[in-house]
């Protein structure tokens, strides 16, 4: 096996140290890596002259290192997807963003219906959102149900097409892109005064996760160090975000099956936990909290004490409310067996986060690629083997417990306030930096490539939802269409994080 150029999570390497492989060699090496246990964390293009340089970031969970492979293509290259399903959405994205044709890709259609970032055209792509060839089954009794983009609840827009036979779904096709705001394009040439705010609004509910990843990328490029106390506060904020969203998800799951007690209580408790984040920085989603080099606000003694007490109460309340789920037979009857994904499938399509852990995959950035405070304090990884809605709910609950314990531990031993962090804005030129963060949905991957001027030549964001949407489509196969909202909520993927 060839040794690739590797770097740790939160590291940076000069661009020229990654060999520019020939396309077939690139393909071979990526496939070899995937066969040997690596996972594609990102696969993206970066403009170089009138060609596009493809980077593939492989995450090696056993060594905790990330390897970078690259190749330069003009307009076509042999597709990875036929032998490596987890690449399929990345390659569709490449085709759409850069007008590169992955030859042999079986499913080449738009991801977000965005306008290409490169003028040259090989194959015209439709830009009106939702106008595409959808997979279709025909035959007697087979019918199609199309949902969205506007849904009946307070949900983000997305389009879903079900090929059904009665109540049974044979195939679900998900078409997104309605939330596409062109963030990646706007990031090129940065950072500027808006960059941090783009990160905060990539996915509003993952503000901490995405800003942490961004800040770590910048810190890697500027080679600056983050004071220990800031690392702890970041860790606490990340886990608070996880707790709040998981509680909210469990409440919403209860709501989807009409189980009122848990739904009502969890909605309120989630608000309480969000208010804890607001205690740190004044904003319920953690806006303004994470900044390059450290944190925007520090914890005062008073807020520390409040945080500790209120978190304890919130977790006690949550335990009461959520344990009702596991004690009520009518709830378990709905959760168990709904929307199952096998471990093998999860591995093949590269699921991340709660969805992966619910299939029994031990996959967690905080353990596999530890960074920041997680290098010091370990949060035990939680898995469940059934891969169904129950597993995704139960893993969430166990993670809430673990995270709360982690926060309470950290609050006990908060490092003393350090001197102001030295943070320089001068970024290395022609470097590639990447940071993985375990957001509450799963692995967030940010990769920055700088140009000669030390500005972003391109900035790649991979939200966990990008890996997981296809998992939802597979989970619905041979399920009842009426269980779709339940399955959807058990994944609770981000539309805006995917659409960017």
């Amino acid at each position: 096996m060839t040794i690739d150029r590797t770097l740790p999570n939160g590291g940076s390497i000069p661009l020229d140290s990654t060999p520019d492989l020939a396309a077939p060699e690139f393909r071979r090496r990526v496939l070899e890596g995937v066969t040997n246990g690596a996972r594609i964390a990102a696969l993206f293009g970066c403009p170089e002259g009138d060609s596009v340089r493809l980077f593939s970031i492989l995450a090696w969970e056993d060594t905790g290192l990330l390897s970078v492979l690259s190749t330069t293509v003009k307009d076509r290259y042999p597709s990875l997807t036929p032998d490596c399903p987890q690449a399929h959405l990345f390659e569709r994205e490449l085709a759409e963003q850069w007008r590169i044709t992955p030859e042999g890709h079986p499913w080449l259609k738009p991801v977000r219906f965005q306008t290409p970032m490169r003028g040259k055209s090989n194959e015209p792509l439709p830009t009106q959102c939702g106008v595409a060839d959808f997979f279709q089954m025909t035959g007697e009794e087979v019918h199609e149900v199309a949902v969205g983009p506007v849904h009946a609840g307070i949900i983000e827009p997305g389009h879903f097409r079900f090929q059904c036979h009665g109540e049974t779904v044979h195939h679900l096709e998900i078409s997104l892109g309605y939330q596409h705001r062109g963030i990646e394009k706007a990031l090129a040439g940065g950072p500027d005064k808006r960059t941090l705010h783009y990160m905060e609004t990539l996915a509003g509910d993952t503000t901490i996760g995405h800003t942490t990843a961004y800040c770590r990328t910048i810190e890697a490029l500027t080679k600056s160090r983050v004071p220990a106390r800031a690392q702890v506060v970041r860790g606490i904020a990340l886990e608070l975000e996880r707790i709040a969203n998981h509680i909210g998800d469990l409440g919403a799951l209860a709501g989807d099956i009409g189980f009122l007690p848990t739904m009502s209580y969890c909605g309120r408790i989630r608000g309480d936990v969000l208010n804890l984040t607001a205690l740190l920085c004044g904003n319920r989603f953690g806006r303004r909290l994470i900044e390059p080099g450290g944190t925007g606000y520090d914890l005062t003694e008073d807020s520390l004490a409040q945080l500790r007490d209120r978190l304890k109460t919130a977790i006690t309340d949550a335990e009461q409310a959520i344990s009702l789920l596991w004690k009520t037979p009518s709830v378990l009857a709905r959760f168990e067996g709904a929307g199952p994904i096998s471990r093998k499938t999860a591995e093949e399509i590269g699921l991340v986060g709660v969805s992966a852990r619910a299939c029994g995959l031990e996959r967690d950035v905080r353990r596999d690629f530890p960074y920041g405070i997680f290098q010091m304090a370990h949060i035990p990884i939680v898995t469940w083997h059934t891969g169904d809605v129950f597993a995704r709910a139960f893993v969430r609950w166990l993670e809430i417990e673990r995270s709360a314990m982690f926060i309470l531990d950290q609050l006990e031993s908060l490092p003393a306030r350090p001197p102001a962090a030295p943070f320089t804005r001068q970024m290395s030129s022609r470097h590639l930096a990447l940071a993985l963060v375990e957001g509450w949905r799963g692995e967030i991957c940010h990769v920055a490539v700088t140009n000669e001027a030390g500005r972003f030549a391109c900035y790649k964001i991979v939200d966990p939802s990008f890996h997981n949407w296809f998992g939802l489509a597979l989970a619905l196969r041979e399920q009842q269409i009426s269980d779709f909202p339940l399955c959807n909520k058990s994944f609770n993927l981000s539309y805006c994080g995917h659409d960017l």
Partner: protein
Amino acid sequence: MKTLLLHAFMLFSGLIAAPFLLGVINRTKALFAGRKGAPLFQLYFDMAKLLRKGVTYSRTTTWIFRAAPVIGLSAVMTAMTLMPLARMSAPLSFPGDLVLFAYCLGLMRFVTVLAALDTGSSFEGMGASREVQFSALAEPVLIIAIAALVCAAGSPSLTAIFAAMTRATWQALGPALVLIVAALLVIFLVENARIPVDDPNTHLELTMIHEVMVLDYSGPDLAFILYAASLKLWVLGTLIVNIAISFLDLHGFFTPLAFTAGMLVLAVLVGIIESIMARLSLLKVPRLLMGALVLAVLAFAFIARFTS
């Protein structure tokens, strides 16, 4: 003249009080959730507002869509005139009126389903399909339960049935009547789209049954539909409460009092059920209905055995 006044009073009290029941159900749920909850008279406010609003019709719809709310409402109102309040005779009563009662509810469903199909939307078609599937199973339960009542009371008219049912009937046929009430309670939940069969609060169009069929209605049409739904709740509730309070053997002034209390208890009971149960998977609803069918058949067999 007195009877006429009494009948008019009964009808109007039903017509006016029916939406209140939904308010009680929602308040009970709010109490269980630990929130203040919507006002008891929220549905009245909603309807008053809707009646003053305009309408939007899809271009795919035809006159069927527009006619359905009115036909549905009149059907359920007809059913109301057939239903006595406790021991007071119904405004309209003749032998066999319970067949008309069941068919009026059937007519209401027929027009609702037809209107849903008329929109040509895949959701509404799906809702219609579910509605028809479940009602096909619910109708026999209702018919058999009514048949058992006929058997018990020895008369094929609703008014006569409830006039004939006394504490003595309960003493003789208690277990069977309990079974009938249980079966009718399931039907009550199914027909009125309550948990555990349907979730009246859900916003998820793929899981709805009844709600999804009326997604396309707006303005006064929607007000009619909401009103008809509350009347249906009322009239089916009356059926259950009438059986239950016949145990008390009340006369005169106490009858309407007990009836009112009974309706409130029923509403609270529904609120409690909705607060402590998750919704069933759609595939399991037929099992629930089959269970209700078994209850009704058992009651029927019991009554047939012991009334000879």
